[in-house]
């Protein structure tokens, strides 16, 4: 596909790998923020190919993984109401809440449907006026405009049977939290390309200033990722800390104005609990008060609104913040596998633990250098 295959050229990739290796005088620690990047790095084997000179820490940028278990539990409860359909992205269906996943609840009597787009949920509400259609809205700034548009469309269509359970999150506040942690080991960041497509990257200048760490706005194809890594490594070697846009075909400094406007109309920034992490100031989006009639939590007060997260042996919080590698968790690969996930990063195919289980559980070291 145009603009995809161009950036998957193995020749380019090998060349960039080579350049990165030559550039490194020591082993550097970089965090790729976005789960999509994690997935691509592991799938293409870049992670392994660079393991002697770059440690890649998989960041918290998987909205599925950071959605608190209680939000899933509340969605399950809503799906049990009569004449109610809970819709969400397919990624969410297998994520365990406090007691089972949305898919498990469907096997009982929950009414759940995966949708490709929030606007598909609006269409379902239009088609089925007899039932309430609730959209469990998860995702970073990339996905928030689609949810906002769905709310605006529902309002325009005067639908009173559409609402959202809003669990949108914002990535920069989480990066700040990680970077300011005393245990932080990360020396440079690959910022999430598609988030920046919407938000732009002006705000990251302050981050670079404050933490004196290189940040490369990075895309998702192997070449994109390698260009981002090369940029960060080069800066680290030269003791520089700058903000560089390595995804210029999709990201502009100011982001997407229309998308920001649509989001601004519908959402306010709020503090938000992330799964496995503390409450992150400014780490989430909620509906503005004037849209409260579309807020499923207000529309259908839950008899048993769960706010508490339950502790288990799972150390996914530390994995999500890059404190430990998935394999350092005592449950990894034992009690916790893709079939029996304890934490969300083992569920989502791009969660750090699942990706690790898939690509690294069976180690083909040494023999496995790129040719």
């Amino acid at each position, binding site marked *: 596909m145009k*603009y995809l295959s161009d950036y998957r050229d193995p020749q380019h990739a090998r*060349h960039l790998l080579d350049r990165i290796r030559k550039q490194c005088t020591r082993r550097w620690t970089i965090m790729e923020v976005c789960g999509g990047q994690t997935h691509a790095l592991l799938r293409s084997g870049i992670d392994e190919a660079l393991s002697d000179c770059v440690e890649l820490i998989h960041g918290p940028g998987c909205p599925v993984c950071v959605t608190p278990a209680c939000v899933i539990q509340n969605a399950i409860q809503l799906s049990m109401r009569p004449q109610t359909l809970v819709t969400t992205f397919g990624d969410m269906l297998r994520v365990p809440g406090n007691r089972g996943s949305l898919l498990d609840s469907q096997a009982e009597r929950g009414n759940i449907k995966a949708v490709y787009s929030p606007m598909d949920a609006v269409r379902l509400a239009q088609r089925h006026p007899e039932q309430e259609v609730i959209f469990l809205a998860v995702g970073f700034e990339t996905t928030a405009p*689609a949810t906002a548009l769905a709310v605006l469309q529902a309002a325009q269509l005067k639908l009173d049977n559409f609402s959202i359970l809003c669990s949108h999150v914002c990535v920069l506040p989480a990066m700040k939290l990680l970077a300011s942690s005393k245990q932080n080991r990360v020396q440079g960041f690959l910022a999430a390309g598609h988030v920046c497509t919407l938000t732009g990257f002006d705000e990251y200048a302050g981050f670079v200033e404050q933490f004196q760490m290189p940040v490369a706005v990075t895309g998702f194809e192997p070449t994109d990722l390698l*260009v981002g890594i090369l940029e960060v490594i080069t800066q680290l070697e030269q003791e520089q800390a700058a903000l560089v846009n390595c995804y210029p075909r*999709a990201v502009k400094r100011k982001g*997407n104005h229309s998308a920001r406007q649509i989001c601004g109309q519908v959402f306010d920034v709020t503090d938000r609990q992330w799964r496995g992490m503390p409450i992150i100031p400014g780490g989430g989006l909620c509906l503005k008060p004037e849209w409260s009639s579309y807020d499923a939590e207000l529309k259908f007060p839950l008899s048993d609104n769960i706010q508490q997260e339950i502790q288990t042996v799972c150390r996914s919080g530390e994995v999500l913040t890059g404190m430990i590698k998935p394999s350092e968790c005592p449950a990894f690969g034992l009690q916790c596998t893709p079939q029996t996930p304890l934490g969300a990063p083992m569920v989502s195919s791009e969660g750090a633990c699942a990706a690790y289980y898939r690509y690294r559980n069976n180690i083909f070291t040494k023999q496995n250098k790129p040719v």
Partner: protein
Amino acid sequence: MCLGVPGKVVRWIDRTPLFSKAEIEFEGVRKVCHMACVEEAEIGDYVIVHAGMAICRIDAQAASQQLDTLQQLLDSTEGDIN
């Protein structure tokens, strides 16, 4: 996070604000996508689609510049080896 796939705008279907839609061509298949965030896109432009919505136009010039730079990098290194 944030699967985004590039496709070409081939036909505008609806220009109504909030409901604007266009047909986007991905290799071998077309899909109608929401265009509220890229209403300025023209036929032939490439956009990135996420969750059924175009989130940006692809800057063709920036894309080809980057590919050129990569190719130059490759060529210059091959020169070194020879």
